[in-house]
């Protein structure tokens, strides 16, 4: 049985459609990365699948239970860690944990055992008497995670869990997620970091309320919209990337080009050889220090998909 089945999820706010017919499935034990620009509907989808926001239409099945029919049973089975650090600053680590144990109906010895176990699992025991306000970003996230999994949920939703914490803490948190995922817990994670996306076993990309990609990182890199037949991808290292980008885009065989740090990622017709490309660039006044063939990165995939969707939306708006 799938951990999450989303069928044609729709959420409207008046005339505005925040989520427009989103469907996907998440299997147990997957680390499901849910990506998309800000305001594209990520959090709305999470809220619908946690049972706190009613669906305008469609169905969400969590662990075999329909969220609309029985949100309470769903809430008992899931954990949720929201975008902001949302624990109580003026409570200690232990008090925060106790509160979550109580709110999920754990009593007495059972609660004490679960608290002890969760603290060990997340290695926060040394900090148990510290006020949450006094924890660093990484430890706060870890405490939030501990609270969210206090009741032993099979499915955890993490809304941008690593936003604003340092790289080391970020890495450690992800290591922990994989530990837990190995124990059979399913994760639904939103993120903006591409390196995090690369680590997910399953990815989906949402743009303006519509799901425009769904698959493993490997399959997404190969989708035809991103690497159409008869095209190739090069990385062009050059000095003045902004001017170079503008000039490179004037070349007739160029399909798309974007700046990537101090180089340009370019998609072009595969009739052009690497040497020819260098010459063509010189002709428009761009000196390439280095040209390398490139397999598309996830970021290329999402950028490409976003451009296509934008063009499509503008096209449909123009035809109106």
């Amino acid at each position, binding site marked *: 049985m799938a951990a999450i089945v989303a069928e044609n999820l729709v959420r409207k706010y008046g005339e505005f459609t925040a989520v427009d017919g989103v469907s996907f499935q998440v299997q147990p034990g997957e680390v499901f990365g849910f990506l998309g620009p800000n305001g594209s509907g990520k959090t709305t989808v999470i809220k619908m699948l*946690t*049972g*706190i*926001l*009613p669906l305008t239409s469609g169905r969400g099945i969590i662990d075999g239970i329909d969220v609309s029919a029985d*949100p*309470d049973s769903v*809430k*008992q*089975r*899931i954990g*949720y*860690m*929201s*975008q*902001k650090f*949302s*624990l*109580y600053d*003026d*409570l200690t680590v232990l*008090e925060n944990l*106790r*509160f*979550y144990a*109580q*709110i*999920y*109906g754990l009593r007495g010895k*059972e609660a004490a055992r679960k608290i002890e*176990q969760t603290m*060990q*699992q*997340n*290695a926060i025991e040394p900090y148990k008497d510290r006020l949450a306000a006094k924890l660093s970003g990484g430890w706060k996230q*870890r405490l939030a995670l501990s609270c969210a999994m206090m*009741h*032993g*949920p*099979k499915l955890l939703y993490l809304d941008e869990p690593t936003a604003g914490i340092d790289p080391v803490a970020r890495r*450690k948190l992800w*290591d*922990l997620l994989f*530990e837990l995922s190995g*124990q*059979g*817990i399913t994760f639904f994670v939103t993120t903006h970091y591409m390196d995090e996306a690369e680590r997910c076993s399953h990815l989906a990309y949402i743009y303006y309320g519509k799901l425009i990609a769904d698959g493993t990182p490997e399959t997404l890199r190969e989708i035809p919209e991103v690497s159409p037949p008869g095209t190739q991808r090069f990385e062009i290292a050059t000095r003045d990337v902004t001017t170079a980008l503008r000039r490179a885009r004037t070349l007739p065989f160029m399909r798309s080009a974007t700046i990537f740090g101090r180089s340009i990622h370019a998609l072009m017709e595969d009739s052009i050889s690497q040497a020819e490309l260098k010459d063509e660039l010189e002709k428009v006044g761009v000196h390439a220090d280095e040209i390398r063939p490139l397999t598309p990165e996830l970021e290329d995939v999402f950028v490409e998909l976003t451009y296509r969707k934008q063009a499509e939306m503008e096209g449909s708006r123009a035809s109106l």
Partner: protein
Amino acid sequence: MTTSSLVETQPAASVQNQSLNVPEAGSHNGTLAAWSDNPFRGFKAIFYKESLHLRRDPMAIMFALLIPIVEMIILGAAIDTNVRQVRTVVLDQSGLMEHADDIEGSQSSRALLDRFRSSDTFKIYKYVHSDEELTHEMVAGHAKVGLKIPYDFDRQLLRGDSAQIMVLVDGSDSSVAGQTLNVASAIGLDESLRRMLPEGKQPAIDVRPKVMFNPDSRSPNFFLPGLMTVLLLFVTTMLTAFSIVREKERGTLEQLFVTPVRPLGLMMGKIMPYFGLAMIEMLMILAFMRFAFQVPIHGNVLLLLALAMCYMFTHLSLGMLISSKANSQNDAMQRSMGIMLPSIFLSGYIFPLDNMPWIFYLMSFFVPATYMMQISRGIILRGAGFGDLWINAAALLLMGFGALTLAARNFKKMIV
């Protein structure tokens, strides 16, 4: 030690345990099922957490315990609404007939001024020589009252005509103006009667006023029972409203909604700690009022506490209602003010309701503090019993349940 190594070194058994967690929870199905039907689910957890917040919140302690004492000292000791020793300037020209520059006045004018002095209302601080000086003292605000005794005062009296004196009153403070005018007229009337009545004869009607319930017209007796009503507002309405709005602002409320907590459990868990705090505050105010300010409590203290609980309930519910609507602490503050200001001005706390234009009089019926004002003054000052006051308690409960129902509906919309 790094975290990952900590996790790795965990005994395999505990890892096993973790993955088996959910079936394990399932084995408690019996208790869980009973628990999941409970409309107050989550109450204990919220109560626990809220009590901790309260203990660590200096603002709450200040509102509940410090501000009441300061306000009581200000209103109980510093403010005296009885008008006494009003600064008075005198222009007495009645002595001018005898000596050219005499401001001492004549014998009869001195007798009259002594009457003014001994009334305790007027304090003569200065004699002046001219109308200009008199006016100046009034305009400059040095004097609230100016007395002018004309040069023919003595002559008129001797002739048996009506001798006039002029009393100028600064009307910018209406309570002082009203009371000084009354006292001045009374002195004039009394003095006239004395002169008209033959020696040893009594006035035909002798009015013997007796002020019931507050015989000495002491300000603390009047103000403190009302002040108690107003002070309880802060803890009940404002702090409760803040406690939820703060969670909205921080995003913790959203986190709570993902847990199986029920609206009633959430609201009661939030209300009860503040209810406890309000009770402590009330007991403190009562003790302070009784022992520090010597305000006698004529009625039953337990009845007062019981009826005050109705009032607290109403305002805690209003606090909930505010927090279900407000999205920031500022917003909550303004909405709370919308409740507190009418409670101060339209409850009879400061201004008597009977003198209000009908529209405000009508509005006062929708202000919970109006009923509590009746209850606290009734029990403390008049020794009223349940039979006299039950209707007030009923009105409070009605409003409380109304507000709570609305609040619960708003929260349900949020929680689903």
